[in-house]
């Protein structure tokens, strides 16, 4: 196994410190020059229900999780065993079965799990007295232990034990703890350090000199890399694009982005407005876009459904934007509020009644999330349409190691702006018929540019008009923009054929499944002679039908892979190219694909020589 190739899990009840422990540890790994990917699963609940992070580390970039758990750090027994089977509400099976043979479980002694009653004898159990360790650390600093004040540090115990298991220096963890604590709590840093050390020692005492099967190898000569979640990357991209107005209504998993931006309002020229609902969020953003600023909003499925009418309104009035980031979660309806899906593609393609142009783009990873968010503003301005960036809970809440977000140097395009002569004889025409299909927009406040526009069908000057010829002209003008986009947007932005041109299998995908697909292809190609490439379609409306058809037609074997029930991209491909992809790997559990699951799907598709197959399975 390559060095630092580890899959850790930290789990416990929401509100018990799983989040900070996980965030601290992942950052410590990243600072140590290790590549990190993390995924979090949590219930739609504030306190009490099960939450867990998977932290994967490697000495090369990884963007997905694996099924196995090497080390399980548990803050309660439920993390290990799951819920009471007699309860008809929010059940799960726990994680004991996921731990690899030889793996380790760290658990609080007070829940009473012992090597004898654990239920598995092929894993190492480190049952540690969390509270006692905290207590002794506190007292070491001459303070009296106070549960109310100090119990929060219990989550440092499994981290300390983990450091012992992985032979990782606890002093790599401490600076992160310090950074997270506010000024007034800096006095807790040394106590946290003691907790980590005591836990390290306690674990070490149990482990003895035997050690653990895997260690974490710091590479301190690396340039400092970012460890960033998708919602943060997108937030930064909005500031980079000069977005001045962001509206939102709280909703998982989208509001994290707005909350992130909210905290930057004093330092950056942006107003983040928490609206009364998503109808308001959307229409405020449309108003701001018409008034001339780059405007955006972010939401999840239930919110986007309420933004529907605003999409049609923005499009018929040819507003320059807004950019709507849609973080997909499990649907339908309220559905699985905190789980992942790719269920909203079909809806995003036609999010309201009537026929109108808009753009739907789906980034495949955290860097693309940032870059395509930036480009979305260019497109909004250039084509005067609303733009939907299709992200998801996986992108929003996963952390990825990257060198940078790749925003620097991206072009800025504000589209055609009217600055005409005040005294010109011809009155300004907001929806002028032009050969490019786009009418230069006057920014309100510009003398001579006074225009009216309306959600009704209208003339070039924006007046209500029901005449037949005018209707045809304006429909052709608006819908024709879809063709122009396909001509102007570089093909490299529309889609990517990752891997060799020729391959045994072509996986057809969109959005964030790119992450596990990338890792799985690498794995399968390392383990076998199979060659796999991946057609990742980013631009979903307008759809690059000709190019996609061409690639699909020359592929040897096709596999459609999506995080939804219906195979929505498959339906779109058929709708636009007539090609129906027969083989499908569809997942609709609310959980993202793991690298292993994708690798398995690849193997299911491509028959392997017996020997190779056996080797791969044994890996």
């Amino acid at each position, binding site marked *: 196994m390559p060095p630092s190739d580890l899959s850790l899990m930290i789990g416990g009840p929401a509100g018990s410190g799983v989040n900070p422990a996980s965030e601290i540890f992942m950052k410590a790994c990243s600072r140590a020059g290790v590549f990190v990917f993390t995924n979090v699963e949590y219930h739609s609940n504030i306190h009490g229900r099960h939450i867990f992070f998977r932290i994967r580390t490697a000495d090369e970039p990884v963007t997905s999780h694996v099924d196995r758990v090497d080390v399980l750090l548990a803050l309660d027994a439920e993390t290990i065993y799951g819920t009471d089977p007699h309860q008809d509400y929010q059940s799960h099976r726990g994680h004991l079965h996921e731990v690899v043979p030889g793996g380790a479980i760290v658990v609080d002694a007070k829940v009473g799990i012992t090597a004898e009653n654990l239920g598995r004898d092929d894993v190492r159990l480190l049952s540690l007295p969390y509270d006692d360790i905290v207590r002794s650390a506190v007292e070491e600093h001459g303070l009296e232990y106070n549960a109310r004040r100090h119990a929060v540090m219990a989550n440092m115990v499994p981290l300390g034990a983990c450091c012992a298991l992985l032979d990782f220096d606890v002093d790599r963890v401490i600076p992160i703890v310090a950074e997270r604590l506010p000024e007034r709590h800096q006095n807790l840093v040394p106590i946290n350090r003691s907790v980590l050390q005591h836990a390290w020692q306690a674990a070490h005492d149990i482990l003895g000199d035997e050690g653990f099967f895997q260690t974490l190898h710091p590479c301190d000569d690396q340039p400092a890399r970012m460890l960033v979640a998708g919602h943060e990357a997108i937030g930064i991209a909005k500031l980079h694009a000069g977005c001045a107005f962001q509206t939102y209504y709280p909703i998982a998993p989208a509001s994290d982005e707005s909350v992130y931006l909210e905290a930057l309002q004093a330092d950056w020229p942006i107003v983040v407005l928490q609206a009364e609902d998503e109808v308001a969020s959307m*229409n405020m953003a449309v108003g701001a876009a018409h008034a001339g600023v780059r405007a955006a909003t972010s939401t999840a499925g239930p919110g986007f459904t309420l933004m529907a009418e605003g999409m049609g309104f923005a499009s018929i009035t040819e507003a320059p934007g807004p950019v709507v980031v849609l973080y997909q979660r499990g649907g339908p309806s309220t559905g699985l509020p905190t789980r992942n899906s790719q269920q909203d593609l079909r809806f995003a393609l036609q999010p309201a009644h009537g026929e109108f142009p808009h753009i739907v783009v789906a980034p495949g990873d955290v860097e693309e999330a940032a870059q395509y968010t930036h480009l979305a503003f260019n497109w909004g301005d250039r084509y005067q349409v609303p733009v939907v960036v299709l992200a998801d809970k996986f992108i929003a809440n996963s952390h990825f190691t990257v060198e940078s977000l790749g925003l620097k140097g991206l072009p800025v395009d504000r589209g055609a702006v009217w600055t005409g002569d005040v005294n010109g004889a011809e009155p300004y025409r907001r929806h002028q018929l032009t050969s490019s299909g786009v009418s230069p927009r006057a920014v309100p406040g510009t003398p001579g540019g006074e225009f009216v526009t309306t959600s009704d069908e209208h003339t070039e000057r924006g007046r209500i008009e029901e005449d037949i010829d005018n209707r045809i002209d304006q429909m052709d003008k608006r819908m024709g923009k879809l063709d122009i986009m396909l001509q102007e947007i570089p093909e490299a932005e529309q889609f990517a054929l990752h891997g060799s041109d020729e391959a045994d299998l072509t996986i057809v995908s969109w959005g964030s499944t790119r992450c596990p697909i990338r890792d799985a292809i690498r794995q399968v190609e390392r383990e076998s002679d199979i060659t796999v490439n991946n057609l990742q379609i980013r631009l979903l409306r307008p759809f690059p039908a000709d190019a996609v058809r061409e690639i699909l037609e020359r592929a040897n074997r096709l596999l459609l892979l999506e995080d939804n029930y219906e195979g929505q991209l498959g339906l779109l491909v058929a709708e636009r190219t007539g090609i129906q992809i027969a083989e499908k790997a569809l997942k609709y559990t609310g959980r993202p694909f793991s690298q292993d699951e994708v690798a398995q799907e690849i193997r299911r598709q491509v028959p392997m020589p017996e020997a190779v197959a056996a080797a791969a399975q044994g890996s």
Partner: protein
Amino acid sequence: MAVATLPTAKDFAVTDSHPDWCGGCGDFGILNAVKQALAQRGRAPHDVMVVSGIGCSGKLPHYVRTYGLHTLHGRVLNVATGVKLANRDLEVLAVGGDGDGYGIGAGYFVNSGRRNVDFTYLVHNNGVYGLTKGQASPTMQRGMQVKSMPEPAIIDAVNPIGLAISSGYTFIARGYAMAQRELVGLIVQAMEHRGTALIDILQPCPVYNDLLTIDFFRGRDIGHQRTYALADEGYDGKVHDPSNVDEIVAKQQAALAKSYEWGERIPMGVLYQIDLPTFEDGVASRRPEFETASLIDSARPGVDVSSLEDRFR
């Protein structure tokens, strides 16, 4: 920005289009008053944005030469909020029907009051859904029946004035579409007010509402004009000390009582006014630049964000 030569109402006239309202519709009165008020306020046409909802009333921006957005049914306040926050130099007027504002838009009506963005909102209150052929609007009272209704209303009217008070509007007035001079004055006052200013404008719809007719307001049946000016009777709706809760409550109570005055006498004018921080003030309190600069002048595309990236290293 005021223009060098003061504009006149004519500067706001549209020549290549004409209103398709019915003859005798109160909307004509409101349109005229808007043009006059804009002229009095001294704004150039290009510095004004009129945002409207959907309904007969919603067509108004097509008939006035300014920037104009004829939006969606019930969403006029959302759009107006976005416009004003994007560019605080624009004079923003929101207009729409009573169905638009107090019915489908009621949620935005309430929450816009709380926000207190600096624009003016004119509601064309005609008691009916005009453009969809005369169904009862939210201001139609229980038991009332206009000719387009198959039977009397079995639900209660909303009280827009009371609603506005409890939603936090900082300027609340009642106007009458046919009382031009007074209406122009009210609109100018509303535009001068800092914060969201509401004018509920009684607007005859001669086609569908045969109860709230010009004759009704004129009081032909009772021998005297029903509408009267609050100011003429010494009513003062303005809170003089916005930190004095007792004064606030008293003024709100007085306005609430006036909102029920109907029948023989119908009060017109400013019912309630208070100086409170606007949303823009709140924004500026975080980032002083916004005290004077508009968003549109602040943000630059392609700005360096490496300092933000570095926080994640």
